[in-house]
């Protein structure tokens, strides 16, 4: 365990997150009561919903830091946006993976166009667009501005996607819809506690991953600055 921690360079903060994760595991798998209708599968919720919360929260962070970046034009806000997008994307992937795994035994099918899943899928696509623009626009001088604009528009879009997906399904009541009310109302207090702890731990984990990702981006900047210095003394090797 310690060996792995060293190899992954996990800091004390990271260790706290890890301990929290183990605690969440205990709370959600053992401590929380068994759901009457769905059975043990329902326990997926504790990680699924927490991941969904982070996926949304991260994109709002992308939007906020994008606004600040356009305003101040400081690289660090671009780093915040980029890191939040990448880590948020990882959590959004968790949502997209656990959603169908939960859906299969409950609904009998891997995918239904349930509002929450549809919402997550559109959010996931926006994340993909953001990261694609990062990668494929790398040679553009204005790519950071473009990304900030996309981050802002994506964040403004979140409420619209929310309502659009909700009402879209609302018109087809024949499909099995798992609404927010249904989830919350049927939940016992212990379940809510487990979910709350899980959300807090995931938030901590998100910030830990963010800090790692940001440090990585700063290392990249340092490398480029050094490379620039080395190459600048050999003017022949510099070019557009």
């Amino acid at each position, binding site marked *: 365990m310690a060996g792995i921690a060293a190899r992954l360079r996990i800091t004390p903060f990271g260790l706290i997150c890890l301990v929290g994760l183990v605690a969440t595991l205990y709370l959600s798998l053992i401590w929380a009561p068994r759901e009457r209708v769905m059975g043990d599968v329902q326990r997926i919720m504790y990680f699924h919903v927490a991941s969904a919360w982070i996926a949304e929260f991260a994109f709002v962070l992308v939007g906020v830091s994008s606004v600040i970046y*356009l305003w101040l034009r400081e690289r660090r806000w671009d780093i915040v946006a980029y890191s939040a997008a990448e880590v948020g994307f990882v959590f959004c992937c968790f949502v997209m993976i656990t959603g169908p795994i939960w859906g299969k035994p409950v609904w009998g099918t891997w995918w239904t166009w349930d509002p929450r899943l549809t919402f997550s899928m*559109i959010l996931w*696509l*926006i994340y*993909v*667009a953001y990261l*694609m*623009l990062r990668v*494929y*626009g790398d*040679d*553009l*001088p*204005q790519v950071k*501005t*473009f990304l*900030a*604009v*996309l981050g*802002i*528009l*994506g964040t*403004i*879009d979140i409420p*619209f*996607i929310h*309502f*659009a*997906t909700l*009402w*879209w399904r609302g*018109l087809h009541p024949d499909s099995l819809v798992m609404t927010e009310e249904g989830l919350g109302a049927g939940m016992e207090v212990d379940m809510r506690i487990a979910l709350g702890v899980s959300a807090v731990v995931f938030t901590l984990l998100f910030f830990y991953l963010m800090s790692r990702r940001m440090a990585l981006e700063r290392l990249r900047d340092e490398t480029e600055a050094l490379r620039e210095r080395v190459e600048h003394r050999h003017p022949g090797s510099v070019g557009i």
Partner: protein
Amino acid sequence: MRSMLAQSWQIYRKDMLVEYRTRERVVTMFVFSLIVVIIFNFAFNAGADVLQRVAPGMIWVAFAFAGMLSASRSFSPEKDRGTFEGLLLAPIDRGSIFLGKLMGNVTLIGLVQLAVLPLFVLFFNMTILPYLSKLLVIFFLGTVGFSSVATLFAAVAVNTRMRDVMLPVLLLPVASPVLIALVETTRTTFEGGDWQDMTNWIRLLSVFTVVFLIASVMLFEYIVEE
């Protein structure tokens, strides 16, 4: 504000004059939407009732792609021939460049819609006349909302290496609420629904259009400067 509208009018006029001379955008958009509608007809080789249910989705897919074509072509020739820099050098609010381009896109998409809708009605054996006024409002709102986002992202995508791929990747997820709303309201209208049956959707369409129009005008300036 008034001068901004006057400036965007100049750009709009110029674009429309160029389009009038070449007609390349309208013609490609028209042929494209027509082909999409026909191909969908083959794909859903089914009875009239099924066709009528999928028709709204079909038609908005066609118009969404035609809209992307229009938005993309409103920037790519300017960029490729270097005339875009000429616009940026002008002593005008750059938001007016955006507005001019947006007006052009809405006009062209509108023209294509006017041409394709009758054919669509013909192919699918639908009635449209009683719903005309409702459809007009819905189509106008939706086309302006969709085109705002499309025009802004087209200005982004035109700078990237993979501009043709980048535009749909950027645009469609962000524009998905509009597209869903458009399909739903069009369907409700064709099913004989009233305004009350789609209050939520109309509200969503209007708010989206206003919010994204304002945001796009404001953000455009950031996009065009290096």
